[in-house]
């Protein structure tokens, strides 16, 4: 591994930058200088050989690109470029070629880009597999009748192959077992390590005494099968982790800072301190907590509070990190950044909620707790019995080794990872990312589902309701006005009216008044589209998202109301979950009217409006105290505490980073259709795991008496081990 890394280092200009040089180059410019000339892009839409070829060709044809390589498994492209080429240039190139691309922050991906542990496990698996095949060949000759000197020679060769292979391959088990023993605990790895060591040790002794039975094949096969389980387990988690990291990496932490001379400079978020002036463009998310010093705009707080209606803001107002700036550019004076910002303060709330969550012990842990002592007791009893009965320690030790090998937790070691791998794979293909190893088991226990409204059941995108009632002339004027702004309500109106075939009217002097609306001159008369009081209407509609249109002078302003569109499949998801016998509830920070309308639309009976973040968590805690198991689905900062307090939690990929971190399952697609299937899959996986445990126990019940009675030969041990491992794996595949 070291050779490879050294060999490739000079090809990456980014790694050549030495920390000393950066430190010596003066403060403030660090991020600029350390800029990696390797760019990572996420390509969510690529799916075939033609996509790979067109993306690579388009990139390679760009001047300045040295090397471009697409990874289809991760849907990513990594590009080596000259330092003057930026990610935005390449995104434009790909956009022209017809591919959607997003920049990824290589820093956030560093942990998984180099999967050392996975390769290490694969290497051990390869060695164990090689040794097992060779030892098995020799063992077959022994079982077929080789005896005397030939048998001894075969045993010695087996020992020569198996012992070094075990010493290398079984290290993960030895390490885990040692860690558990030192901590005064028993886990699954203790009997595994003991079985491997005892089998190898007694076999070596038997071989030196020209004994008939040697278990080298069993010891190495045990290692091989268990490493498969370990590797599957690792892979499932690594895939989920890298996808979760990719979501985080999509938010490249760069901020536009204003220097004393009024110059704009782009810096890393971590470089911002209290007192710095930060520019937030329309559509951008507030990177810090701060006070507005310049500009007027409207801000979207839905991720923090669940309210859908935009809030106007002006100089002097305070904003929090995570809110989205909608209309005009804002200059903020930073009050708190990074660790001190309200976004991070929320992490503390999550930590408190998590410690309250009862520590869940996984099915595998519970099985190990029963299994490990049981096996040790049987082995010790068998050894003691045979020692007292025959007075021969050698025979007694052989019997104990046979018992440990026969009861080998091969099937138990595969029972859980094989099923979770199959189930996670199935859900991953349906756009669900299982972040936590025990999430499926916990999901299967659930009896109440609590949804958040804004951004979870709904898309968080407004849809106009009154557009069809507009007079054609009015519609043309509204469209022309709406096209002049990037405000979400304006762009929703523009999109809707364009889809209805409306042609925009010819307007003059169109201008946007940040925080208020858009105005223009039409045939010498003033038109306005925007906030109620600004267009001349007294009193806004209560509890509704609306904008107002003031037609040619003198006309009464017209209200254009909006509703928040449901996510695709939300109704089906609720219906599926209810059909599966679950209680479905809705908790939202939004107004009562909006909440009850939506609850009625998707068919939820229990709905609560105007709920504060702490109340959400309290509601979940109250349900848990009644002994109910809650699945919380939410996306915003106001949901994070509730997500952490719930038995198991989900959040959509569009949610805030904090919400995704707090949840066990991330929904990668925008529709919710498969939510019901996730529950069914979880139920089925747990049923398969239980079946696998029963199958493994059945094999043990049949084989242990043979081992205790001293009738087990290495052949029987090998048969029992392979047969149980294969049945367990095949059973797990039924989940797919």
């Amino acid at each position: 591994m070291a050779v490879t890394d050294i060999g490739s280092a000079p090809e990456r200009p980014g790694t050549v930058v030495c920390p000393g040089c950066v430190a010596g180059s003066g403060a403030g410019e660090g991020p600029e200088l350390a800029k990696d000339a390797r760019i990572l892009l996420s390509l969510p839409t690529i799916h075939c050989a033609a996509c790979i070829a067109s993306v690579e060709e388009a990139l390679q044809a760009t001047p300045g690109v040295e090397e471009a390589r697409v990874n289809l498994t991760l849907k990513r492209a990594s590009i080596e470029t000259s330092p003057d080429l930026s990610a935005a240039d390449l995104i434009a190139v790909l956009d022209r070629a017809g591919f959607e691309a997003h920049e990824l922050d290589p820093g956030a991906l560093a942990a998984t880009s180099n999967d050392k542990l996975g390769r290490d496990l694969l290497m051990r698996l390869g060695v164990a597999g090689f040794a097992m095949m060779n030892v098995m060949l020799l063992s077959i000759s022994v079982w077929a009748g080789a005896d005397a000197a030939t048998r001894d020679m075969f045993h010695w060769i087996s020992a020569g192959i198996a012992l070094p292979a075990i010493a290398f391959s079984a290290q993960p088990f030895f390490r885990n077992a040692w860690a558990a023993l030192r901590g005064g605990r028993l886990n699954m790895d203790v009997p595994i390590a003991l079985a491997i060591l005892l089998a190898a040790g007694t076999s070596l002794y038997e071989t030196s005494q020209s004994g008939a039975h040697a278990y080298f094949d069993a010891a190495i096969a045990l290692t091989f099968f268990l490493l498969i389980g370990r590797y599957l387990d690792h892979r499932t988690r690594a895939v989920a982790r890298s996808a979760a990291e990719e979501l985080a990496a999509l938010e490249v932490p760069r901020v536009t800072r204003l220097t004393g001379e009024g110059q704009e400079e782009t810096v890393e978020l971590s470089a911002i301190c209290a007192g710095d002036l930060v520019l937030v463009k329309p559509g951008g998310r507030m990177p810090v907590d701060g006070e507005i010093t310049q500009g007027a705009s409207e801000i979207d707080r839905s991720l923090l509070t669940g309210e859908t209606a935009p809030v106007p803001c002006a100089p002097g107002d305070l904003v929090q990190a995570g809110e989205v700036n909608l209309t005009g550019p804002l200059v903020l004076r930073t009050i708190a950044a990074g660790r001190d910002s309200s976004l991070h303060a929320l992490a503390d709330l999550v930590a408190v909620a998590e410690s309250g969550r009862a520590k869940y012990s996984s099915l595998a842990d519970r099985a190990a707790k029963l299994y490990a002592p049981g096996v040790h007791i049987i082995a010790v009893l068998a050894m003691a019995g045979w020692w007292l009965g025959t007075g021969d320690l050698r025979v007694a030790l052989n019997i104990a080794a046979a018992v440990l090998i026969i009861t080998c937790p091969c099937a138990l070691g595969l029972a859980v990872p094989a099923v979770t791998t199959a189930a996670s794979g199935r859900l991953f293909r349906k756009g669900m990312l299982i972040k936590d190893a025990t999430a499926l088991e916990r999901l299967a226990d659930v009896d109440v589902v609590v949804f958040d409204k804004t951004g979870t059941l709904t898309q968080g995108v407004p849809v106009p309701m009154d557009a069809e009632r507009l007079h054609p002339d009015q519609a043309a004027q509204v469209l022309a006005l709406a096209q002049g702004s990037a405000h979400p309500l304006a762009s929703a109106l523009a999109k809707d009216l364009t889809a209805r075939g409306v042609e925009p009217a010819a307007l003059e002097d169109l201008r946007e008044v940040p925080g208020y609306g858009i105005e223009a001159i039409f045939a010498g008369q003033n038109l306005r589209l925007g906030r109620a009081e600004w267009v001349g209407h007294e009193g806004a509609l209560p509890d509704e998202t609306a904008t107002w249109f003031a037609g040619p002078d003198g006309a009464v302003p017209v209200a254009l109301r909006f509703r928040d569109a449901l996510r695709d499949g939300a109704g089906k998801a609720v219906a599926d979950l209810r059909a599966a016998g679950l209680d479905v509830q809705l908790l939202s920070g939004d107004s009562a009217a909006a909440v009850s309308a939506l609850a009625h639309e998707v068919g939820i009976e229990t709905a609560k409006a105007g709920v504060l973040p702490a109340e959400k968590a309290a509601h979940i805690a109250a349900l848990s105290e009644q002994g109910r198991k809650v699945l919380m689905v939410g996306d915003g900062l106001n949901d994070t505490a509730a997500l952490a307090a719930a038995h198991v939690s989900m959040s959509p990929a569009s949610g805030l980073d904090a919400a995704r971190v707090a949840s066990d399952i991330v929904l990668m697609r925008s529709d919710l259709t498969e939510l019901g299937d996730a529950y069914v899959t979880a139920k089925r996986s747990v049923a398969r795991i239980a079946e696998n445990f029963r199958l493994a126990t059945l094999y043990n019940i049949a084989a242990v008496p043979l081992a205790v009675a001293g009738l087990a030969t290495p052949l029987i041990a090998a048969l029992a081990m392979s047969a149980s491992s294969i049945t367990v794996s095949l059973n797990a595949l039924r989940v797919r």
Partner: protein
Amino acid sequence: MEVLVYLIPASLFLGGLGLVGFFWTLRSHQYEDPEGDSRRILNSQWDDRPKPDGEMDQEGKP
């Protein structure tokens, strides 16, 4: 039975070659994009001649 003196080392050697081959594939990052690699075979680029030097090495890949 004397033939075993040649056959066993020969079989171990051949198996060992396979193992070394596996190590090589592992070290040259050949399991990082199984899906993409299985589709690249359909790509007609470099069908007529091998990819020129400098881009040959697998390790250059990040």
